[in-house]
């Protein structure tokens, strides 16, 4: 009996605090909440960090130009860290939609994580723009899923063409990450295109992300005597693979895709990467004025050069802002449905349906990563650039058009 009596004031206190918290937490102000999810930590943390930087820069410019408002509503971006894990990506997007009541989602870079989260966005009818997932299956999830970049069948062809025509290679081996949708897909598209161009895939080896030691696979590949090794992985493993390849006396160039795009690639791989090539979304050497003004703004804010991942995130955020702005001018009543106050209502559904159509109709948007036109499958058709690593620096080599 005594214990129950003593509990009562405590219980009352807890109740009071809860009520207080509810009173403060529930924002009464209507705003435009946009969700962003990415790998801010984990094995490929620069992907998430660059994306966050690109989106933040776009938001800063919106603040400078229009006081951070679209259609009278203040824009707020909620960022979730998925730690580089697909299951966390799904949870993050679930939380963004259910708790933060976002009206659109930006992310992810890694195709495996975009693929994990996209079905949730699609089911909730919340448009999701992946800045830089290149696996074709990402946008096949549904009509609410978009991307700002080219897809892997094209990227594979680019590197195959480059290897066969520019480098004049005939025999290439492949080393792919078997637990990564992007890597497996790109390896296949590359092999198909390279064989079609008269080349030969002399060996195919695999690893799993997180592995430390690749010497066994590389020794096997070395025995096949390839003229180059195609490694469609992410930068952390690529850096380690390059070093170990050189230690085993493999001197042929390594080739790769946009998964190499990170400042840390050179930090890990060092001189072992000299003479290697990878396909990318942009090169900072491009004199295009839009790109150069973006570079200037980015350097001023972060004190470093952006990678292509940051550029694509910047474009994705701006395409989303522009589409929302179009909706606000077109129909102010429908636009109100995007506000956080309308979450879960029919008005929200009507607004995101219209927003989806506006994003899908994006034509000739002048992005910093190239002109963006979305096709019927919600993919952007853009040229790819090939970057060469020379004396520890990323140097523009050539552009290959679709």
């Amino acid at each position: 009996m005594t214990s129950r009596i003593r509990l009562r004031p405590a219980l009352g206190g807890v109740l009071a605090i809860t009520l207080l918290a509810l009173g403060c937490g529930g924002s009464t102000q209507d705003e435009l909440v946009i969700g962003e999810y990415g790998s801010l930590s984990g094995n490929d943390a620069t992907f998430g960090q660059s994306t966050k930087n690109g989106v933040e820069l776009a938001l800063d410019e919106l603040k400078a130009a229009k006081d951070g408002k679209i259609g009278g509503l203040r824009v707020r971006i909620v960022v979730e860290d998925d730690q580089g894990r697909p299951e966390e990506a799904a949870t993050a997007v679930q939380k963004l939609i259910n708790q933060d009541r976002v009206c659109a989602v930006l992310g992810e870079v890694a195709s495996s994580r975009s693929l994990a989260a996209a079905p949730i966005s699609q089911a909730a009818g919340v448009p999701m723009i992946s800045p830089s997932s290149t696996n074709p299956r990402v946008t096949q999830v549904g009509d609410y899923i978009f991307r700002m970049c080219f897809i892997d069948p094209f990227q594979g062809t680019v590197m195959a063409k480059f290897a066969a025509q520019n480098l004049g290679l005939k025999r290439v081996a492949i080393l792919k990450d078997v637990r990564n949708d992007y890597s497996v897909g790109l390896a296949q598209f590359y092999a198909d295109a390279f064989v079609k161009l008269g080349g030969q895939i002399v060996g195919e080896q695999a690893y799993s992300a997180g592995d430390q030691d690749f010497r066994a696979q590389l020794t096997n590949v070395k025995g096949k005597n390839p003229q180059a090794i195609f490694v469609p992985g992410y930068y952390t493993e690529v850096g380690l693979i390059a070093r170990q390849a050189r230690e085993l006396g493999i001197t042929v160039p390594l080739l790769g895709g946009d998964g190499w795009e990170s400042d840390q690639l050179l930090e890990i791989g060092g001189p072992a990467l000299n003479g290697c090539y990878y396909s990318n979304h942009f090169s900072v050497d491009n004199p295009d004025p839009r790109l150069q003004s973006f570079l200037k703004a980015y350097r001023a804010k972060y004190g470093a050069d952006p990678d292509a991942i940051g550029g694509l995130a910047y474009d994705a955020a701006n395409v989303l802002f522009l589409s929302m702005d179009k909706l606000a001018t077109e129909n102010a009543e429908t636009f109100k449905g995007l506000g956080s106050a309308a979450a879960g209502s029919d008005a929200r559904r009507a607004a995101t349906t219209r927003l989806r159509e506006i994003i899908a109709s994006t034509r000739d948007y002048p992005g910093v990563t190239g002109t963006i036109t979305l096709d019927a499958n919600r993919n952007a058709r853009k040229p790819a650039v090939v970057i060469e690593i020379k004396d520890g620096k990323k140097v523009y080599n050539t552009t290959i058009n679709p």
Partner: protein
Amino acid sequence: MAEFFQQLVNGITWGSVYALIALGYTMVYGILKLINFAHGDVYMLGAFFAYYSARWLGVAEHPTPLHALGVLLLAMAGCAVVGIVIERAAYKPVRRSSRLAALITAIGVSLLLENAGILIFGPDPKFFPQIIPSTNIALGGGVTISNQQVIILVVSVVLMIGLRFIVLKTRVGKAMQAVSHNHTAAALMGISVDRIITFTFMIGSMLAAAAGVLVALQNPKIEPLMGIMPGLKAFVAAVLGGIGNIPGAVIGGLIMGIAEVMVVGYLSPTYRDAIAFVLLIVILLVRPAGILGRNVAEKV
């Protein structure tokens, strides 16, 4: 054939790292009959201590062999302290309880170290500086070995010989042997059992730290969860060689490293982690005491 020998070289270097970690498991088991699951995490701490001391000493900018040795010794000293603290704070209080209690404590310590690592060092991988620039040494017939692999082999062998010397020739080593036979009898002979157990943890942790530094030297990516898999595999290596048996741990580690590299090189890399546990099952079925282990009948 060159390819096979190259794989063998790869396997032996990789295996010598497992051997170093396995020694810590086997020593602690020999003395306490405790499987110290936190051992893999001490290996992780070794790599991180080396990372921070290399930065503190500024070795990355001016790598010299003397600096590299300094980094190795600092990491080993740091882990020696960690080993002593773990033993005193976590294992000593439960030493008189059941063996299951000690085992669960070990798992708890392991989780504590991993998550403290994430909290303190951050979850992102760090990149170990090149404290010894790598060069290649041709062994003839197309087989090469890097100077870093040579260093791994040399340091491992030196440490293993040193350990063997300590255990067989010194007073403290003989006391360790006595304690491993029987705690009470050893205590009656005037041996301070507590001190010997602490010493064992210290030596085991130093070997794990050395393994951590050597691996980081060769594969420069380090992160707080890097100790889990090598820890488990080194444990399997210790069981393979006969747990409690020091030469057994070395043999087990080498078999493990070679088996892993051969599986990746000739079968499929997806079986890399599976092979360790296949070996464990086979050895438990065929020779439960391990390759060099003796079957001791337990009196009920």
